[in-house]
């Protein structure tokens, strides 16, 4: 893993990531301001959110589709496209919008 604050001599060349699987260590969900909250009653498991989520972070559960919040960036596409209005975007705690 590349050390935070590493100088140019220490960094691998060309901004490559020289080991596989580092996306598991970099939880991009931290960017999120809104979190999708699924109403399990309304979800029909139509898979549309699963198909359209640009981060591939919809997880199939027995009775509904849930969200992998480690990588969900909060774009809201799933909530917008859900034909059953089963997803609501809720402001994350500690986040605010002007």
């Amino acid at each position, binding site marked *: 893993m590349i050390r935070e604050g590493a100088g140019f001599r220490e*960094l691998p060349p*060309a*901004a490559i*990531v020289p080991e596989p699987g580092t996306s598991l260590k970099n939880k991009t969900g931290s960017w999120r301001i809104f979190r999708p909250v699924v109403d399990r009653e309304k979800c029909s498991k139509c898979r549309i959110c699963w198909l359209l989520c640009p981060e591939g972070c919809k997880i199939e559960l027995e009775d509904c589709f849930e969200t992998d919040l480690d990588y969900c960036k909060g774009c809201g596409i799933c909530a917008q496209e859900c034909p059953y209005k089963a997803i609501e975007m809720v402001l994350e705690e500690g986040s605010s919008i002007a």
Partner: protein
Amino acid sequence: MPKQAVISGNMAAAYAAKYARVDVIAAYPITPQTTAIEYLSQWVASGELDAEFVPAESEHSAMTICIAASASGARTFTATASQGLALMHEMLYIASGLRTPVVMMIGNRSLSSPLSIWNDHQDSMAERDAGWIQMYAENVQETFDMGLMCYRVGEDSRVMLPAMFCIDGFFLTHTYQNVVLPDQEQVDEFLPPYSPKYRLDPSNPIAMGTVGDPRWYMEFAKQKVEAMEAARGVVEEAHRDFEKIFGRRYDPFIERFHCNDADYIFITMGSVSGTFRHVVRELRKEGASVGLVRIRTFRPFPYEELREAISGAKVVGIVDRSISFGAMKSCGPLFLEVRAALYEQEKKPKTVNLILGIGGRDTTPSMVRECFKKLESVDERREFDVFWIGLRE
């Protein structure tokens, strides 16, 4: 046994890629580069060259294909000119940023508009800050030799930068000259197989082409600078090895002709240097104190070598075959760099910018004599002039 052949500049460039045992060629045809790519595609089709030939749908794609192939560890070649190079612009920075040592021949051609298929240096000069090694050949033999040199320098582990060798459209691309082609074993000795430290390989996955947010981007830009600066030593080393193996000696950065005691020195690049050398020789016979510096390697720029070669002169005439529109008096880019190199010198010559051969206009010996008159008439107290030679008023 090395063999003699009468070939064109384009064929010499194609031969350089062939002798380098290129793995992947991707290109899009454009005058005056086209035949270089045609030779390579014929050799691939006939089985004479064991390589992948990708006829891309644009120069942008051709460069992208070369970058991707290079990232997987392949030795790559492409060639272009003019608008084709301009279309590649975006990918040129990516090639140097990804540190993929793609090698490209430029058949130097003017930029539209007006449309011109003829020669000047505006196309490659526009790419001088893209992080590519740049070399300019004067003749067909040098075209072949520079092609090999580009692989050798670009692929060096201390450098890992893409490299372009620039040959003047038609004046070199389509001119046939007698050339010595080496033995394959000599080239193999000069140019070992490309084996980068990092490459795209499914059995050992890495990620390339990542995001560099503001916490990281500067460090990677600085790495590119370090690579370019390291290339200075590598260019010299490679030329020493080249001489040992092939028996031909070039000055790695600048060629000096009658410079030591000269009051007046021209600085040129590319095929026009032959005409200048011819006239300098004549003027010498007539008793004039004149010399010539020909720049072979433009990136990295040989500022120390130039200082040493020209600081004893009274007046230096810097020949530009391109224009930096809106620069000081809209001079040429070579003029800017040479002037900048002299700034720290206590004793420095006066400088004159000679802009000529734009859009393929011929430069004749009488024009070179006119250039010399401009140098002779420089007034000590006057600021520099930018002269357009061969222009109708």
